[in-house]
């Protein structure tokens, strides 16, 4: 098992004036976020508010203005930020001959997966899968995993690089209520026991209220951020989510 590091609360990640323009259209404008390690930050907003774009911009997958700094407050110098990313889904259709080992090893190792299975790599993958009680899935085909199983596999993979920041993109779609509860509890334990900050895109306001340390209401820019209670009571929140109810 991996060593459990208690969060120090001393370092933070700052997103300064981040903006994204795609094809002449401004998708995100002047985003400022301050994220502490060991905190769960949830981004909410209507469809098309730019939530996934924000995640991809922080990942460096799309060009953006502004900057992201990672500060270690204890000794002041800036280290390289390591990001773990859990995508919405993987590109596997039925009958794709890719096992969980193949998938993780293709990202994490240079041992060619078509030729052989590296013993060391396999052990390492298994250890990380065990964190989420998914060790038995290592030889299963990725396309045969349930939504919840795939999520746990992807989470363990994201942890393999010991990230400082974990980004999760709408991971709760296609999972039943029990699975959701389990997922939020897992995330909660993660941020408590590992030295990392979490940014999560979520649609499920009920769980957000219960688990989030900080909520960011997004609609092209940050409309409101703060504790779940503050944001949920705000006029901006009512505007975004009440108007959505009317549409429906």
């Amino acid at each position, binding site marked *: 098992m991996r060593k459990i590091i208690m969060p120090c609360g001393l370092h933070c990640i700052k997103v300064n004036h981040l903006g994204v323009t795609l094809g002449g259209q401004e998708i995100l404008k002047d985003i400022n976020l301050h994220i502490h390690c060991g905190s769960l930050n949830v981004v909410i907003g209507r469809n098309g508010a730019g939530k996934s774009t924000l995640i*991809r911009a922080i*990942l*460096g*997958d799309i060009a953006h203005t502004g900057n992201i700094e990672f500060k270690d407050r204890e000794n002041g110098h800036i280290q390289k930020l390591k*990001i*773990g*990313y859990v*995508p919405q*889904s*993987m*590109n*596997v259709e039925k*009958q*794709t*001959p*890719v*096992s969980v*080992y*193949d*998938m993780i*090893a*293709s*990202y*994490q*190792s*240079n*041992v*060619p*997966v*078509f*030729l*052989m*299975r590296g013993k060391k790599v396999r052990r390492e993958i298994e250890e990380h899968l065990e964190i989420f009680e998914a060790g038995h899935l290592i*030889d299963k*085909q990725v396309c045969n995993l349930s939504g919840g199983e795939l999520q746990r596999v992807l989470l363990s993979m994201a942890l393999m*690089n010991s990230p400082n920041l974990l*980004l999760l993109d709408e991971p709760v779609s296609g999972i039943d209520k029990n699975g959701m509860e389990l997922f939020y509890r897992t995330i909660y334990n993660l941020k408590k026991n590992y030295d990392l900050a979490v940014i999560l895109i979520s649609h499920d306001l009920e769980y957000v209220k219960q688990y989030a340390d900080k909520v960011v209401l997004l609609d092209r820019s940050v409309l409101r951020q703060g504790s779940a209670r503050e944001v949920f009571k705000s006029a901006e929140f009512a505007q975004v989510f009440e108007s959505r109810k009317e549409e429906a």
Partner: protein
Amino acid sequence: MNFFSWLQYDFMKYAFLAILIITPLFGLMGTMIVNRKMAFFSDALGHSALTGIAVGVVLGVNNTSISMVVFAIVFALLLNLISGKVSSSTDTVISVFSSCSIALGLAILSQGGNFSKYSSILVGDILSITPREIWYLFVILLAALAFWLFGFNKLLAVSLNRTLAGSLHISAVWLENLFAVLTALIVMVSIKWIGILIINALLILPAAAAKNISENMREYHFFSILFSVFSGVLGLVISYYTNVATGPTIVILASFIYFATYWWGSRYNV
């Protein structure tokens, strides 16, 4: 009658050697082409051979094989670039380019009623291969193996999720281009022996058959190469005794294997 009597002729020996090099190569490359859903792409590549020859004829190049290879590489890179940029679905874009290029090639080559001179490339003839050309194939096989050892994990990672790969600093734009170039090279070098009409079948069928019954990448590659070599060698022998063109015989065998694995896979491998 000696079972290996067909090997007494030099042309059969060379054809046998060529099959032993081409089929594993195709089995290997096919796995990635099938997984990335690039079957249409490699098909279009095969068709571009005619245009490559036509371009060579127009430019007055003596050795049209060179213009063919160069054109295919340019064509492959262009297809890669365009399918990444255009928002309409990739198969439509590829189809447009493929039809345009084959029409251009046919128009130029048929000018003056001379097309019969080039029609042999449609079916191909493995029995006419020379030792020098076998060496070329061998070098390409080594290159493909090296590429696979070095680049396969990254290519797989990107095909599974590009953004996730990017977050781990796996950038594959040049690897994908290299893969396209390698595919172009392999298709062009072997097209004279296999033929435009069926070369894609040889690339796709063994991998598609292997996919039906494999659960991981090692099984997938093992079966793909096994099916490819098996149908290649058996196809050559059968075509010798039945006096049928070798390429089609191989493809018919590979199709049988595909249907058999499809049946087996849907029954036992759900």
